[in-house]
């Protein structure tokens, strides 16, 4: 009789095992099980790393996190694109030219470009609508703070069906570059904010399939009448977001996703050892900065600032904090390798020079320089870069007290509120990068850098038509920051992406908000 109790247990066990087998039997990796698989390849499964949650949308006016920008890159085009070296490339605009005095810019649109919404052809009306909408405060776009100072809504006029002129408030030689930002995708004339949020209206390589902001997988199908020959290569696109780095690693190892938009250094090193995944890097993508207030003791003494810059061993920060995925910074926002940089190498470590500058400023062993550096884990590598920096400073007799705060409250409570704090920025074209946090009136002036001579250099550059003269002016401004400014910029961080070996044509871009889906395709 005892056999019967084992029988009961056996039946339960069999049911469990049977259930598991039933579930396993439909392998998810079976190509027939995945959605679309047509004659020209399959869907590219692309994983972002940062979720916008409820803020995800297809409205280019608001690009909250990189998840928004993924969808925008798929369904829209801009007038022009810019390369990692900030050169401009034609996109919806075939060509463009300024008036002689640089106060207006005229753009000539490509013909035969159609919207995937209703197939109507792109005309000046769409472009004028797009930019007037961004300039309307009701829209609530970040672009307002960039474009607002340059141009007014009334200044944007359609000369004919395929020509648009922007009449500027003052001369600006770099204006076209401002039309290639994360918000400046061209939308259809008359599209409302609600329509754009929920379904979008663009000319891009893909069109959304039943877009929902909070769906796990965002599906996009090829725009059949897309204007660029041979693009997009993939028949469809599935966008997901994986925020956990272990999960991302498992997903690409198993082939559940084809591309990881951004991976951290540890994951990258693991993946480099595999044959079925390729790790790709970009040039300088973001930079770390330690900000000193130049108007506050002890940083108001330029010798103190120079000493605090001279103690940095930039190579060590790159090797240790960034696992080698970076390049040296030269205490200004232009990477040393960039055509506009004022010199091609970064400041080398010089502890002796730092010591003598400190001595001249009145600090010695009896009266050592002691500073509090506020930090938070806001970017991979930041915490260890700050720790390394404190050790390097100690070599010159400077005591750096690192005060680490929770990343969640850093931007609200610490950043810009302490005289020595960390932050990071994406690499921008020199005209933007030198202005966004260093102009006197900049809202993010995190080093309290207010110099008329500096602002004048930027203004003069903006009004200079000749590119070489302009480069000269920008590099003079950058040099001022390197030599006297309050920002210690030890390193630029490279973008790192990972792609399955069965995919080709993917090239990560240094600007993380720019993702090119046109050329990528996957087999099998």
């Amino acid at each position, binding site marked *: 009789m005892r056999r019967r*109790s084992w029988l009961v247990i056996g039946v339960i066990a069999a049911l469990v095992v049977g259930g598991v087998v039933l579930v396993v039997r439909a392998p998810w990796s079976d190509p027939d099980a995945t959605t679309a698989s047509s004659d020209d390849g399959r869907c590219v499964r692309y994983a972002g790393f940062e979720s916008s949650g409820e*803020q995800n949308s297809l409205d280019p006016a608001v690009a909250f996190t990189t998840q928004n920008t993924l969808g925008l890159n798929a369904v829209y085009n801009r007038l022009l694109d810019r390369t990692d070296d900030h050169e401009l490339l034609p996109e919806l605009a075939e060509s463009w030219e300024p008036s002689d005095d640089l106060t207006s810019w005229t753009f000539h649109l490509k013909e035969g470009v159609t919207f995937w919404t209703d197939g109507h052809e792109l005309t000046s009306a769409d472009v004028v609508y797009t930019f007037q909408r961004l300039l309307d405060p009701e829209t609530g776009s970040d672009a307002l703070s960039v474009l607002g100072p340059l141009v007014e809504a009334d200044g944007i006029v359609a000369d004919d069906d395929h020509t648009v002129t922007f009449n500027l408030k003052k001369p600006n030689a770099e204006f076209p570059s401002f039309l290639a930002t994360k918000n400046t995708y061209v939308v259809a004339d008359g599209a409302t904010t609600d329509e754009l949020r929920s379904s979008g209206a663009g000319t891009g390589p893909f069109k959304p399939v039943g877009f929902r*902001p909070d769906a796990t997988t965002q599906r996009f199908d090829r725009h059949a009448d897309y204007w660029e020959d041979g693009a997009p290569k993939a028949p469809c696109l599935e966008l997901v977001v994986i925020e956990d780095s272990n999960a991302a690693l498992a997903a690409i190892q198993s082939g559940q996703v084809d591309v990881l938009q951004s991976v951290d250094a540890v994951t990258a090193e693991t993946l480099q050892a595999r044959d079925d995944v390729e790790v790709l890097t970009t040039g300088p993508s973001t930079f770390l900065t330690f900000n000193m207030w130049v108007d506050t003791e002890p940083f108001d003494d330029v010798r103190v600032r120079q000493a605090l810059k001279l103690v940095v061993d930039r190579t060590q920060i790159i090797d240790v904090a960034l696992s080698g995925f970076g390049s040296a910074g030269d205490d200004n926002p232009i990477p040393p390798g960039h055509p506009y940089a004022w010199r091609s190498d970064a400041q080398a470590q010089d502890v002796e020079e730092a010591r003598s500058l400190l001595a001249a400023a009145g600090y010695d062993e009896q009266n050592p320089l002691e500073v509090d550096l506020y930090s938070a884990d806001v970017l991979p590598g930041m915490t260890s870069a700050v720790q390394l920096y404190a050790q390097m400073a100690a070599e010159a007799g400077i005591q750096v007290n690192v005060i680490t705060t929770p990343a969640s409250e850093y931007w609200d409570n610490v950043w810009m509120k302490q005289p020595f704090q960390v932050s990071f920025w994406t690499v921008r074209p020199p005209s933007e990068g030198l202005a966004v946090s260093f102009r006197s009136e900049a809202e993010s002036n995190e080093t309290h850098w207010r110099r008329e001579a500096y602002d004048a250099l930027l203004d003069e550059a903006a009004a200079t038509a000749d590119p070489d003269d302009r480069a000269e002016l920008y590099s003079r401004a950058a040099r001022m920051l390197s030599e006297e400014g309050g920002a210690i910029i030890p390193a630029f961080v490279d973008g790192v992406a990972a792609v399955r070996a069965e995919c080709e044509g993917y090239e990560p871009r240094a600007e993380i908000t720019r993702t090119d889906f046109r050329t990528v395709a996957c087999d099998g």
Partner: protein
Amino acid sequence: MVKRVLVSLATLLAVSVVIFIVADVLPGDVATRVLGRESTAEQREVFRERLNLDAPAAERYVDWLGGVVRGDFGESVVSGRPVTEVVGEKALNTLFLGVYALILYIPVVLFFSIVGAMNKGRWPDTVTSGLTLVGLSLPEFVLANMLVLAFALWQPWFPPLAFVDPGMGFTDRIHATTLPALTLTVPMAVYAIRMLRGQLVEILDSEYVRMCTLRGIPRHRILISHALPNGLGPALKVTALNLAYLISGVVVVEEVFSYDGLGALLVATISTRDIPVLEALVLLGAATYIIANLLSDIATTLLVPRLRTGR
């Protein structure tokens, strides 16, 4: 019973007040969160005005409560979508995962505790208790990663990430959620197994069981008809606690498996200070906890003979 329901409602009300206060005290400004650190002061002002964020917290709370009483949970501060729409589908996803984990949990607990109790001191018992000790000491994210390594990468039976879609078929969904469900099942089951096995061992040693044995009642019948029902009480209590664990456990598990449920939403909501959604989520959690306890009390009364007979 009426009293119990009233106390439950009062608890929920208290929870909602606490959440409102905490969300108000939490450092950080909703407008900066939503608009980003590069937004202008003017943009943030427009945003605050639109949502009436500058009004006193008490006034905003009363407004909100008035809505809830009428069944209107308000709109997400971040996206402007109704809270019920934001929470609804994710709640179903989490419910699915939780129920799946519970369905796996019951046979696992019964099997191991019965095997352990019936073989007290012999190797099946030693193995069971060893396994539960290991299970007790493993944090969820370690367990999750071990399961992924074993059953997604080494033996690719299951996907490493649990992506689900509303249009997905039932077996596909089961297939996608098996690893996260197992990750939830194990920590719940180990407690219950230890508890139930201990109870069964004690009962099997008791006088009435010896009496049954003397009467010649077969061992499996003693176990199923006499020992198990009497031993279930504490195990059901543990199960109620486990349901409460499920509510918090899903936060970690959903994160590790990129599962689209309440846990992930909760984390996102806290970081954006989206108070209407946060309130709805916490109330949902509290209500689940209260209801789980109520159900376990009812089940205990119905199942345990000693209590059923109205001692």
